[in-house]
């Protein structure tokens, strides 16, 4: 009797394991209904709190979930990079499920080794710098739209954003090579040390002017005060002069 039970158990377990190795659309749907449907509607049809997700594709879901932008605490909260709310497995499940809702862009495969750095620099300055800044340190895009700094972005984040145009970002029709080139350039900006020294924020003359005043002028005026009265020159001597 025990051996039959053991055999049955083994068969059940053997049947269950393959199902766990691939993302199960059913599990994904369950996660979705619990965490996402309140805003995005059952099966992603959309509600007045959140846009429909039908056709956004795996790339969009992967981007939003991995960078922690989704889920939002409230419907109109700003979408900022945060630690992800789900673990890797859950993200996999949700991505697969959302991807199954009438297709959409898939998670891209990047080839950064062969990417053209010069082309990436050109495309970035032509298309991305207006919002994200030439140094990719982010910028205000009007209203509640802020093009974020790219200093923490992974290559996949950047590629997925370029494909899926999250938030106010416009869509760009880049070829795979062009996309990889831009990603390579952003990684270059992230990784290369600033040739001139401390980059004080990388946003240009605003921080440079601030440093000129708050650091250089303060030091210089202090030096002037020291030069005039002398280091350690005691107050009594000065008063004594006045008495004379």
């Amino acid at each position, binding site marked *: 009797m025990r051996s039959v039970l053991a055999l049955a158990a083994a068969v059940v377990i053997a049947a269950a394991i393959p199902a766990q190795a691939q993302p199960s659309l059913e599990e994904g749907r369950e996660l979705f209904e619990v965490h996402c449907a309140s805003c995005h509607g059952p099966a992603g049809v959309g509600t007045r709190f959140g846009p429909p997700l039908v056709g956004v594709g795996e790339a969009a879901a992967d981007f939003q979930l991995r960078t922690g932008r989704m889920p939002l605490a409230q419907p109109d909260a700003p979408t900022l990079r945060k630690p992800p709310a789900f673990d890797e497995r859950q993200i996999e499940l949700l991505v697969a499920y959302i991807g199954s809702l009438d297709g959409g862009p898939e998670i891209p495969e990047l080839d950064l080794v062969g990417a053209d750095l010069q082309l990436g620099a050109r495309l970035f*300055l032509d298309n991305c*710098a207006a919002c994200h800044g*030439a140094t990719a340190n982010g910028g205000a895009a009007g209203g509640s739209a802020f093009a974020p700094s790219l200093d923490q972005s992974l290559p996949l984040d950047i590629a997925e954003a370029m494909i899926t145009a999250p938030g106010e970002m416009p869509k760009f029709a880049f070829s795979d090579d062009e996309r990889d080139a831009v990603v390579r350039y952003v990684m270059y900006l992230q990784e290369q040390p600033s040739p*001139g020294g401390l980059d004080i924020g990388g946003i240009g003359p605003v921080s*440079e002017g601030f440093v*000129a005043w708050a650091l250089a002028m303060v030091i210089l005026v202090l030096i002037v005060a020291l*030069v005039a009265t002398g280091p350690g020159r005691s107050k009594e001597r000065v008063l004594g002069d006045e008495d004379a």
Partner: protein
Amino acid sequence: MIRWIDRRLGVDSWARKGLRKVFPDHWSFLLGEIALFTFLVLLATGIFLTLFYRPDATPVVYDGPYEPLRGREVSAAYESVLRLSFQVRAGLVMRQIHHWAALVFVASIVVHAARVFFTGAFRRPREVNWLVGVGLLVLALMMGFTGYSLPDDLLSGTGLRIAYSALISIPFIGPYLAYLAFGGEFPTHGIIPRLFVMHVMLFPALLIALITAHLAILVQQKHTQFPGPGRREDNVVGKRLWPSQVFKSTGLMLLTAAVLAVMGGLVQINPVWTYGPFDATIVSAPAQPDWYMGWLEGAIRLFPPFEPQIFGVTIPAMFIPGVVLPGVFFTLLALWPFLEQRVTRDMAEHHLLERPRDNPVRTGIGAGALAFVAILTLAGGNDVLALMFNIPVEAITWFFRIAVLVGPVVGGYVAYRIARDLRDGATPAFGRKRGVMLRRTPGGGYEEEGS
């Protein structure tokens, strides 16, 4: 050796007399020297840069070590700056020292001018030197603007575009002026060589001439001094030029240069390689000019969309904040000594300074003016502030629109009150009376002691 020179030039008695001159000893009198010594650093580093820079907008192909731009068509000017930064030994440090010095140059002029203003040192007989000083301030601004536009990078080129639009906005003569200055419709190849000539020859010549005049007038009229024991309008009390003032000034010069050298070596400034070469069809944000032009940038951003037509003549939106504002501001600044004379009817010669508290009205007006410029400067970075605090840039803009009108008035009034209260020794503005001494009156009531 000195005798050798004296036998030929006869300078001995002149030099002795000069070195015995007395200069009053107050720390705030050295602020102008920071500006002077920063200028010397600018001259020295500038000459070095001039030997490597190519004032030429002709396209060339970049072939240097900065990878992302290799193979890209850029102007020869831009290429020369990259070459200087990456392929010339000591090139980058010289360039960065030069640019930091430029920022500090204008800042030190402003601080020095504020000292002169708040102590009334511009009063007769020093009105002329005040005019020279305002001229120096304007020249410093022009030097800065022409200088940072020379690399022909995306950020400074955007600034040139805005300057061109400001010129165009002048009624009747605007388009002519702009075409004359730039050599045609923006963008032109001719503007870079012209900026170079202005930056390296014309403006420095004017600067050196005016600085010389500034110092000569100062020596002729003798420096002002604060009131104190033994100090009157008809004397100067201080230390002789030699040895103490010469040593102090020399020391200050070297220390100023040292600060600028360290900054040039440690802190990056104006990374033109990241901005890329100028391209009139793209722009990077945030886009600001160097800090001393920030007040104009702020004015342009804050000014509401107002473009009236008067007798068929359009007054472009840029005209009032971009042209009229700086014109009026610098005119008022230059004429201030005469305006003050008119109002106070004070035509006397003054060699004794006032402390800021001794003239609360002037202090209040000066504080208000500084607040005005400071608020405009901050407003020039409204998109950076928006990003920093995660507030919509429109809200920041509206905040500054109100602040620029209210702030100077409030700030000026507060400064006025503080100065006045300090001067009158009255109850401190924010203090309390310590208590009163009372005594009985014959009628049975109470009254304060001393009343």
